[in-house]
């Protein structure tokens, strides 16, 4: 193999983020406590620059480099840019929260950037091994982030639980990959795909491997019945971290599914479709029903995530390019909704007070009409009520399912979304119809307010003009 400098161009965004993470790590060593904002600044600047680099180096064509380990295509570019933007938003929301809790440390940003790097590797992976490396980089950084507030007992417990279950899931995934390697003799997706087409491949071993891969995938998605970690981790982690975990990794999980199931094992579509149907129905059902019983908003949003994952899976299992487009649209929209939802949770918290209980949202409209209006948009978007974008995300997915003659599955989906509407409405009810119990004025930095406004209004704007984002997603599968 000959090394050529030009092969580095497609992976320039990854190299850049890696350098930025190292830079933050080193610079942070020399910073005094009150200068910590510099680490934050470098992180945000590098995320913004990374958007530019990705856009500039994008060719619109599929490039495979490093002996087939890494792929760069339109889907990866779009997903990476979405990850950068949403991560930048998450860090922005998190700044004041971290500072109020004395955990405004450079390590948060180092770990955050490594998480982003892990996601980028996953998004661009072209072999099972690359995708596994990306996944481990992502999850290892996540474990540390969940336990970031090291004095918090509940946070440590959550991290421990996440670690043990996560390691188990990684093991399953790896086991599945080894089976598939055994059956096809390759770990590269295109080669695996060809190997599967070979009638002599051992179908038994393949399906066995597929089951383990799907389990690993379902765990990373947080799909029922592999969802047990989600509520505990969301609840235990500092809200700033929950915000981060709840948003972008869903985009990465979508990429994980696309690369492994569609690129790698597209010919086994008939086999994994049935598995995803079960996962999707259980996720939508249990996620929506159990969310009703939650009194803690972080746990409620965790169960709501589970139900949204069910919808994302619906788009993937349809197995058509419109279905993939719909699922991608859904993942990005979901990440934006989660960003805003947890963002509000964080903005309502202050030093020594976590706005975690549903009660804390009572009378928000009296305390801050603007925050309440943004939360209203986010909640209706999550419930899937037009004219917010959440509706179109659901509709495109349903359309994909109906197109493959699974109308019954669409009916199941809409049925559970009615149940889901109830707990989102309850938040609106608390904000608008109840009297406030807590009259402390709400303060938030101007930057957080602006981002929240953009975040909330984007629900409406994307809902009025969904074609803009949709065509970007569709370009990835044309």
């Amino acid at each position: 193999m000959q090394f050529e400098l030009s092969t580095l161009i497609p992976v320039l965004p990854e190299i850049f983020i890696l350098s930025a993470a190292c830079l933050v790590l080193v610079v942070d060593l020399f910073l005094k406590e009150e200068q910590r904002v510099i680490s934050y600044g470098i992180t945000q600047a590098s995320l913004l620059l990374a958007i530019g680099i990705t856009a500039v180096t994008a060719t619109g064509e599929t490039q495979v480099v490093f002996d087939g380990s890494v792929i760069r295509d339109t889907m990866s570019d779009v997903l990476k840019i979405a990850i950068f933007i949403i991560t930048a938003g998450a860090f922005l929301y998190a700044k004041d929260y971290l500072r109020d809790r004395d955990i405004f440390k450079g390590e948060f940003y180092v770990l955050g950037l490594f998480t982003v790097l892990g996601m980028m590797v996953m998004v661009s992976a072209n072999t099972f091994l690359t995708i596994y490396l990306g996944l481990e980089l992502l999850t290892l950084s996540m474990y540390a982030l969940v336990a970031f507030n090291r004095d918090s007992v509940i946070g440590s417990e959550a991290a421990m639980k996440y670690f043990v279950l996560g390691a188990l899931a990684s093991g399953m995934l790896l086991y599945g990959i080894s089976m598939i390697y055994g059956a096809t003799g390759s770990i590269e997706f295109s080669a695996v795909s060809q190997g599967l087409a070979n009638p002599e491949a051992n179908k038994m071993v393949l399906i066995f491997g597929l089951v383990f891969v799907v389990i690993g995938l379902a765990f990373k998605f947080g799909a029922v019945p592999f969802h047990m970690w989600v509520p505990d981790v969301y609840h235990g982690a500092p809200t700033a971290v929950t915000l981060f975990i709840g948003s972008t990794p869903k985009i990465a999980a979508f990429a994980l599914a696309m690369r492994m199931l569609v690129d790698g094992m597209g010919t086994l579509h008939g086999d994994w479709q049935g598995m995803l149907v079960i996962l999707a129905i259980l996720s939508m059902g249990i996620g929506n029903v159990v969310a009703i019983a939650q009194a803690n908003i972080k746990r409620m949003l965790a169960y709501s995530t589970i139900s949204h994952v069910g919808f994302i899976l619906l788009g993937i299992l349809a197995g058509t390019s419109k279905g993939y487009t719909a699922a991608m649209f859904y993942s990005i929209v979901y990440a934006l909704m989660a960003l805003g939802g947890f963002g509000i949770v964080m903005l309502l918290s202050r030093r020594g007070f976590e706005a975690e209980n549903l009660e804390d949202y009572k009378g928000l409209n009296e305390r801050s009409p603007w925050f309440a209006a943004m939360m209203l948009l986010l909640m209706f978007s999550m419930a899937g009520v037009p004219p917010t974008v959440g509706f179109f995300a659901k509709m495109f997915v349903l359309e994909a399912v109906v197109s493959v003659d699974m109308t019954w599955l669409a009916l199941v989906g809409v049925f559970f979304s009615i149940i889901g509407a109830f707990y989102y409405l309850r938040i609106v009810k608390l904000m608008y119809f109840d009297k406030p119990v807590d009259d402390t004025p709400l303060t938030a930095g101007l930057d957080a307010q602006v981002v929240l406004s953009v975040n909330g209004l984007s629900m409406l704007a994307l809902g009025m003009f969904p074609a803009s984002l949709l065509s970007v997603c569709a370009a990835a599968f044309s």
Partner: protein
Amino acid sequence: MFADWPILSLIIWLPIIGGILVLASGDNAANATRWTALVIAILTFVVSLPLYSSFDPTTSDMQFVERASWIPLFNIEYYLGVDGISMPLIILTTFITVFVIIAGWEVIQYKPSHYMAAFLIMEGVMVGVFCALDAMLFYVFWEAMLIPMFLIIGVWGGPNRVYATIKFFLYTFFGSVFMLVALIYMYFQSGSFDILAFHDLKLGLNEQILIFIAFLLAFAVKVPMWPVHTWLPDAHVEAPTGGSVILAAIMLKIGGYGFLRFSLPITPNASNELDWLIILMSLIAVVYIGFVTLVQQDMKKLIAYSSIAHMGFVTLGFFIAFMIMNNSETQGGAILGLEGGMVQMVSHGFISAAMFLCVGVLYDRMHSRQINDYGGVINTMPLFGAFMVFFAMANAGLPGTSGFVGEFMVILASFRADVWFAVLAATTLIISAAYTLWMVKRVVFGKVANNNVATLEDINNREFFVLGSLALAVLVLGLWPAPLVEVMDVSIENLLKHIAVSKL
């Protein structure tokens, strides 16, 4: 001269953008906010008038059409247009909204800018429902309606408002999501969301029946038909006066409109198969709900139940058409039923709005809706008493008022289907007279019941203007319904052609 203007977009977006401006203006200068809202509402009404004056009643084609691509990947369009069925309902919407704004003038002291904005946005969205010709656009408007109404009932409503508004939201949401799946299904059959293309779609009988049921869930909840009507009394009782007016006068009509635009022309064979079901449900609404109305103690609840009974006439008129067509060769009776249903919708829009406004007038003064708390109101409020009696007569279907025309047409049509239908339907003339007049007797007439009633003041100029305008509308439509019937005539005939052709 207005034919080339994007007049429909203007009627949709003027109040929505105006509503956002009102919302942004805040509550610091509440009076200026109220005036702005009123000006926007009146302006919208004025803008909607050319729909009538420039309307061509000789064609059943869609008019004032606007068409632009919206979501090209799924072939979803921003496609607007009106025919004789939707045009009167749009003007009804813009007309009623003006009075709703005026009716909330002094009563609403809590965040008036939000209140006015909610109604203006609602107006635009409701007009959108009536003129959308793309099914997905229709669905977006249809669902978007829920958000302002949810807030109106929940924020400005009565003591039990939270229960009522969540029930309202979930009921209607439940009904409509299945329609969404049906619409998506038809998209794959026809390749677009164009409603007019759906009208020409060939569908098997089983498919039609399933689609029909999906539509029925959506529209029956909205109308509301027995047995899915239970959200309506709760919502009406808790809603502020303006909310009740919009609910009764326009939102219920959207359900009826849905039957005409979707169920009948898209699934005529299924409608023909299942017409007995709808007729049965309608007759139960007319007779059984009529008796339920009789025992109500709460005036708003009474009018809410009477709305259900009156809307039963609308659905009866629509579906009796199938029986008439099966019984006879002529289509005259079928047209009579459909037109009767339409006239009844418009007329009920005026009458129910007026009745709720009357109750609102009393409630603002006494803060009670219980019939027992009143008595002898006419002694202290003679002007108001006259209006209330007039509207009560109209509600009971007295000849000369608009309430009579629609009911009479539907009863006539029922005769052609089956004498017994007509007999049952005609009982409404007795029952509705009984409950409305009995209420009026207890509230308006008699001796002054208590000190509170003795100190009542008669209606002021603002209230007089509102009730007077509606009284005029009821009277004009009752004495001379021809202008309304003429504009819808050709469209109804065209609809009947679609119904008569098998879509199998």
